[in-house]
């Protein structure tokens, strides 16, 4: 019982949106589809919802083969980035829409709408039009509307993308708490790695129409599968031919000696920037500039100044990934072969 996506392919003309996508989304979890814009994550979500047809592959929702079901028969709740509020209907009628379509008794609809409006804290706005609500309120209304049909799966397409930073943060926390309350299988699309790391139980990283890695947030952060995931999920700097997180580097003011020789690099402190509790040090080595971040206390203990010699090494056990350039252009290689 879950969402099973197998072998999904999707093209828009010449543009390949998705290739060979296999995902298993477990029941009752909050899963994030994370990736840069244009990477295909929204397309995948819309294929799961039935709003877009895949060129190949199958979708199974909670044990029901859904590949060719129209959206209205998939029993999924969908929340759009720009709310998609029915502008001519009041907030209560918006929430009631799915129930009215299903011809539920009036009293039942009324009770359910009331319950949902309380859940999303909009009970005092029941008789307003969507145009009289703020963006955050409209999105909560859209969520209540999607939840009203008691969907097996709740799909959210960049749900907080159109909101300002502060409201986005609030709604993010609220979504997490809401999910802990209602436990509906939820998939949301985001390009904000912080949002995914904070809210999701499981993250699917999608780039260039392919899945780069699937795993819980900690696993993705600590053991990234490749340089793309490493770069996308947090700050990185390059030491030698390895990518490493700047806070996983140790700086010393004297040569630490022969231990970990392979990872010790000598350089000169080029620039010191202090941002609140964090100090960022640019160390110029023979062939590159390495960024190291440390706390103010650590920095004070080292007594380094700009221009002083410094030695950089990686904390034992810290995740590193071999840095490779962007993958070679396959079409170009084919052209060279031919």
């Amino acid at each position, binding site marked *: 019982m879950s969402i099973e996506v197998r072998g999904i392919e999707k093209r828009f003309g010449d543009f390949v949106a998705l290739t060979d996508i296999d995902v298993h989304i477990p029941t009752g979890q909050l899963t994030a589809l994370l990736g840069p814009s244009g990477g295909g994550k929204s397309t995948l979500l819309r294929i799961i*919802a*039935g*709003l877009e047809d895949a060129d190949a592959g199958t979708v199974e929702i909670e044990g029901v083969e859904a590949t060719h079901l*129209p*959206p*209205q*028969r*998939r029993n*999924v*709740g*969908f929340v*759009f980035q*720009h*709310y*998609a*509020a*029915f*502008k*001519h209907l009041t907030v209560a009628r918006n929430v009631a*829409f*799915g129930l009215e*379509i*299903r011809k539920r008794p009036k009293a039942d609809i009324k009770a359910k709408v009331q319950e949902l409006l309380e859940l999303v804290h909009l009970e005092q706005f029941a008789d307003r*039009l969507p*145009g*009289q609500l703020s963006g955050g309120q409209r999105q909560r209304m*859209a969520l209540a*509307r*999607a939840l*009203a*049909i008691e969907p097996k799966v709740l799909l959210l397409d960049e749900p907080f993308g159109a909101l300002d930073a502060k409201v986005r943060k609030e709604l993010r926390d609220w979504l997490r708490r809401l999910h802990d309350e209602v436990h509906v299988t939820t998939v949301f699309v985001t390009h904000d790695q912080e949002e995914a790391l904070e809210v999701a139980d499981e993250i699917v990283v999608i780039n260039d129409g392919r899945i780069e890695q699937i795993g819980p947030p900690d696993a993705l952060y600590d053991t990234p599968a490749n340089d793309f995931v490493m770069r996308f999920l947090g700050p990185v700097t390059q030491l030698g031919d390895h990518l490493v997180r700047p806070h996983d580097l140790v700086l010393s003011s004297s040569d630490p000696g022969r231990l970990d020789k392979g990872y010790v690099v000598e350089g000169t402190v080029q620039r010191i920037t202090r941002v609140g509790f964090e100090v960022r040090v640019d160390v110029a080595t023979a062939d590159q500039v390495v960024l190291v971040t440390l706390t103010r206390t650590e920095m004070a203990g080292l007594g380094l100044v700009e221009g002083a010699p410094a030695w950089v090494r990686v904390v034992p056990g810290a995740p590193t990934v071999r840095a490779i350039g962007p993958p070679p252009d396959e079409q170009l290689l084919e052209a060279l072969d031919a």
Partner: protein
Amino acid sequence: MASSASVASRPKAVSRPKVRRRGPLTYVFRFVVVAYLVLLVAWPVSLIAKQTFADGFSTLSTAFGDEEVTAALGLTVRVAVVSVLINLVFGLGISLLLVRYRFPGRRLLSALIDVPLSVSPVVVGLSLVLVYGGRDGWFGPGLEDAGFQIIFATPGIIMATTFVALPLVIREVVPVLEEIGTDQEQAARSLGANAIQTFRRVTLPAIKWAVVYGVVLSLARSLGEFGAVKVVAGNVGGKTRTATLAVEHKYQQFGADNLASAYAIAFLLAAVAVACIVVVSFLRPDVSEKR
């Protein structure tokens, strides 16, 4: 809603004098525009009203006593209502097709829809005669054998009128459909609505005002069509003579009574057209507010 709208427009109202300074040039422009409109539109149309009411209401009552006149008015109303209904149904269908679907030839279809606006109505009438004419049209003789007369009968008049008013509903509805996008429709689908429920509950309320506007424009155009109808109608008094044709016919006859009838019908046509414009101008601000 009203209160928020007035709050939003207040700063605009305050800053308006700064933007528009009233120099002597403003008054010159105003005079030119007003004079232009008076000479070209207001004065000639008002003369119709003046002629109609030169003898009080007797002109109108005489005209309405004439069976030929009432028959012409009745025919015009019937033709206009039927062609507006046809254009409403097809207009909505074509609008949805143009905006919501991508298919080869879509741009050609979009261009074709504007043909009735650019082609002279007389040409429209003539082309209909060539296709449906009873003697040597393409379909005409066959249809006539089967008992359907199109040219020189009401169906022909309806076709000609429908043709010239064809783009009006579409040109109102298409931009609004494009503006509202597909999000609301997709949301309705995901909530369980089928295509018909989605259209009735979500799409139609969103384009309601554009549809009303298009219908009013079509109605005005249908009531006033002359050229195309003239070619296909046959102009038989009491049978295939519409109101516009009756104006011309009466005006060309001798006698003060006929002249008075021409003025009376012309006045009625003008009055309905003005009423349409008034209705539309009351709807316009509504449209922008509802969005």
